[in-house]
C-alpha cells in the first residue's frame, strides 16, 4: 500500500516540482517557445504550428511509447534503490572532515566576503560544476564500451520527446546519481568550509536560479522534434536544442559531438562542439538496420546488462591492468559509434 502511494507521489512530483525538468510550467513555456519559433522563423501559421508541435506520429510513436514505459518503470526502480545510494550530504561531510585534517586549509578563510557575493558565487559554482560533471560523465558514456552499452538505451530513441530525458538504463541512472552526489558534495563542502556561515543558494520557485533559467528557456526542447537553432556565436556558449538533436543523429559526421547539457563551452574547449544544422533532415537513433526493434523492454533493460557485462568480462584484464583495449573487440558493442 505504502509503496504504491510513494510511486504515485514520485510520479506526480516529476510534474509539480519546479526542481524537475518536466515541471508542468516548463513544458508549457517550451510549447510557447516552439510555437514562436515555428511562426516567426519557419513562417508557419498558428494552426500549422500547433499541428506540428502536437504531432501524434511523434508522441504515439513506438519510440515515445517506450519512453513512457521506461519513465514509469524507472520511478519504481529508483524508489527501491535510492535509499541505499550515497547521498550528497555523505560526500559533503566526508570532504569537510578531509579539509579539516589538512592543517594549511584554514576553515572560514573567506568568511568575511560580502554575503551576496558568497551566495552568487555558490549559485553559479553549483550550476557550473554540475554542468561540467554532466559533460564529463556523458563523454565517458560514449567513450567506454561498457558504459556505452547502457547509454545506448537513451540513443535508441528514434523520436525525441521531453520524456526521452527519462529513457535511461537504471544502471546508468546509478552512475548519474553518483555523479550528482559528488558534484554537489564537492561544491557544498568547499563553500561551507571556506565561507563558513553565509552560504546560500539563489532560487526561483525553489530551483537554482540558473537551473530555472535553463528550464524556462526550453530545456525540454532538447528532446523534441522542434529543431530550434541559436546564433552561431551563442552556440559556443549554450547548447541549442538543434545541437542536441544532432548528438542523437545517426550521421557519421555527428558521432561523438555535443555532449554538453546546458553549456556548450565544454564541447568547445575539449573539441567536441558541432554547430547546429537544419535538423528536419536528421535521422535519429543508433543507425542499425533494426532500430525500430530496439524499443522492447528486453532491449531497453536486459540486453544492456548483458552487453556491458560481456564486455567487462572479456576485457577484465586489460581494464584493470590499464592496458589499451583493442579496438576491434569493442567495436561490436559500439555499433554506429566507433572511436
Amino acid at each position, binding site marked *: 500500500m505504502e509503496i504504491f502511494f510513494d510511486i504515485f507521489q514520485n510520479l506526480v512530483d516529476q510534474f509539480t516540482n519546479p526542481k524537475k525538468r518536466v515541471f508542468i510550467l516548463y513544458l508549457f513555456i517550451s510549447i510557447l517557445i516552439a510555437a514562436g519559433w515555428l511562426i516567426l522563423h519557419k513562417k508557419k501559421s498558428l494552426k500549422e504550428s500547433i499541428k506540428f508541435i502536437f504531432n501524434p506520429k511523434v508522441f504515439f510513436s513506438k519510440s515515445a511509447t517506450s519512453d513512457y514505459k521506461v519513465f514509469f518503470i524507472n520511478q519504481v526502480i529508483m524508489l527501491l534503490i535510492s535509499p541505499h545510494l550515497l547521498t550528497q*550530504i555523505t560526500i559533503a561531510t566526508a570532504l569537510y572532515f578531509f579539509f579539516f585534517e589538512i592543517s594549511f586549509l584554514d576553515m572560514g578563510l573567506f568568511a568575511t566576503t560580502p554575503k551576496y557575493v558568497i551566495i552568487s558565487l555558490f549559485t553559479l559554482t553549483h550550476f557550473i560544476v554540475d554542468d561540467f560533471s554532466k559533460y564529463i560523465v556523458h563523454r565517458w558514456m560514449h567513450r567506454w564500451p561498457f558504459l556505452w552499452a547502457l547509454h545506448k538505451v537513451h540513443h535508441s530513441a528514434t523520436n525525441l520527446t521531453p520524456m526521452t530525458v527519462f529513457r535511461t538504463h537504471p544502471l*546508468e541512472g546509478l552512475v548519474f546519481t553518483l555523479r550528482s552526489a559528488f558534484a554537489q558534495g564537492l561544491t557544498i563542502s568547499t563553500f*561551507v568550509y571556506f565561507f563558513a556561515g553565509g552560504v546560500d543558494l539563489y532560487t526561483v520557485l525553489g530551483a537554482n536560479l540558473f537551473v530555472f533559467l535553463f528550464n524556462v528557456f526550453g530545456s525540454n526542447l532538447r528532446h523534441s522534434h522542434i529543431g530550434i537553432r541559436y546564433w552561431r556565436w551563442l552556440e559556443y556558449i549554450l547548447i541549442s536544442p538543434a545541437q542536441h538533436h544532432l548528438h542523437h543523429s545517426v550521421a557519421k559526421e555527428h558521432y561523438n559531438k555535443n555532449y554538453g547539457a546546458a553549456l556548450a563551452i565544454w564541447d568547445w574547449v575539449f573539441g567536441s562542439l558541432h554547430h547546429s544544422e537544419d535538423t528536419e533532415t536528421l535521422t535519429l537513433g543508433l543507425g542499425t538496420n533494426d532500430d525500430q526493434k530496439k524499443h522492447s523492454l528486453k532491449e531497453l533493460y536486459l540486453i544492456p546488462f548483458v552487453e556491458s557485462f560481456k564486455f567487462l568480462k572479456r576485457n577484465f584484464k586489460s581494464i584493470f591492468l590499464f592496458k589499451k583495449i583493442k579496438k576491434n573487440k569493442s567495436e561490436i558493442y559500439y555499433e554506429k559509434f566507433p572511436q
Partner: protein
Amino acid sequence: MKKSNLKTKLLASITCLSFGFTGLANAGAHSEDVYGPFPVTLKGYSGDCTNTVSYSGQIARHVQHDSLKYLSTKGDYDEMNAYYSGSDKNKQIWAPASKEGFPIKQILLNDISSGKNLSGKTYKGTITAWPNNMTGPEVIDFWMSKAESNPKDVSVGLNYQQLISKFIMGAVFYNQAVDNYLDEKMEADTKPNDKPYKDGACYTGKEHSWDEAFGYWGAAAHSLLLSAEQNYNVAKKKDLASADFNSDGVVDLKSEYVFAHAYYASSFDKGGKTSYLEDITRAFLNGRKLITSANGEKLTDAKRSELMGYVSIISDNWEKVIAESVFKYAGSTYKSLVALEDVTNADLPKEFDKYMKYWGELKGFSMALQVGKDNIGETGTKLNRMVGFGPMLLDETQIVGIDVNGNYVMDKIYSMNDAKLHMLKIQKLMIDQFGIEARANDMLSDMADLASKIGTSESAEND
C-alpha cells in the same frame, strides 16, 4: 519537504475520514491519559489498597540525584555520599526545593520514601569510558572524592557536578529501567502477573516492575496532558499551574514533577521535530493498561509480545534522548573550542568555565549511552576515543590516565584541530547510529540545509 507534506495531508485526511467518529467520542476523556490510579487485579488480595501504582522509591532516587548534584559543588564528600550511598538520617531535600511561586510538598527524603540509595542501583559493569577499569559506583566515588577538594578543576578541565549528574542518570535510571525492569523482569517466568510483587503487596509482579521503570523515566503522571513546553517549564519550576494536577496548591514530587531524561526529552521536543516524551510516556501508559487488562492472570504470549512492543518503543526512544544530548553537547563543546581560539585574557576564565561544563555534560551523557540494555559496541569505542578522558586544555594536553596515587596523567596526544574535528564526528556518529532528529547545536546543518535546498541527487535522467 514538499513530498512529505503532500503525504501527510493525504494520510491525515484519510485518517480523519475513517476515524472521525471515534475521535469525537474520545474527546474530553483526559483521565485516560494519566498514569494511575490503577485498580487491584491481584487474585485473592483482601487488604484495603485501592491503587496499585507505586514508584516512590524511584522518585526518592531522583531526589537523591538532584540533591547530590546540588551538593557536588559544595566540597563535602560525606554529605554527597549520604545522598549517593544512603543514610540512616532523614536528610533534607536540597533539590528540587520550593521556590517563590512553586511550592513543593516534600521537604525531607523520608516524606517520599526511606532507606533508598543510588549506589546499590548503579551499573556494576566495567566503565571503559574511564581509566583503570572501574565499576560504575567506583567511578562515581572517585569523582565525589575529587570534587571534595576541587569541584571545578581548571588544571585538568573537569566539572565534577556535570560528570556525576549526567552519568548517574544513565547508570541508575536508564540502566535500571531498560536493563532490569523492562528486560529481565518482563520475562515470562520472572515477577509473574498472577503473584504479588512481594509477599503482602497489592500489586502483581508485572504491574510493579512496570511502574518502577516508569518511575525511573521521570515523567509526571499527567505529562501526557501537557505540551513539551509545559513539561519543560515544570522541570524548570516555572509553571505551577501545569505541575499542580490535583490543584492542592503544592507540587507533589511523587507524581507531579518532571525529572531527569523526561526533562531532557521535553527540551528536545519543544523544538517541534521530535516527540520523545510523548512517545515514551504513552508507551508506558499503554503497557500499564495492557498489564491491568490481564486482570491478575499470567500474561499470555500474545499479550506479553504486545508488551514487548511497548518496551522497544521505550528503550529505543530513551536511547535517542541520550544520543540527542551527546549530539547537543558535542556542538556546544565545539563552539567553545572555537571561542577559546581568540578569547581575550579578561574573558578566558568565563569561557573556560563554560567549556568545562559543556565537555562534562558531553562526557556524562556519552557514558550514560553505554550503560543501556545492549552494548553499543564500536560506537562506544569511537565515542570514548573522540570524547577523551578530559577536555583538551589550551596547551593541547589532556587527561590520558590515572596513576597509582589517583592523580591524573596529562599528555599531548592530538591537536586542537583534531579535538574540534572529533566533536563534528561525534555529531555525525549520533546521526548515523541512532537516527536522531532534534539535533540541537548542529554544527553540520549548513551542509544539510544546502543539500536539501538543492534537492535530491537521485537522477535517472539523460540531459
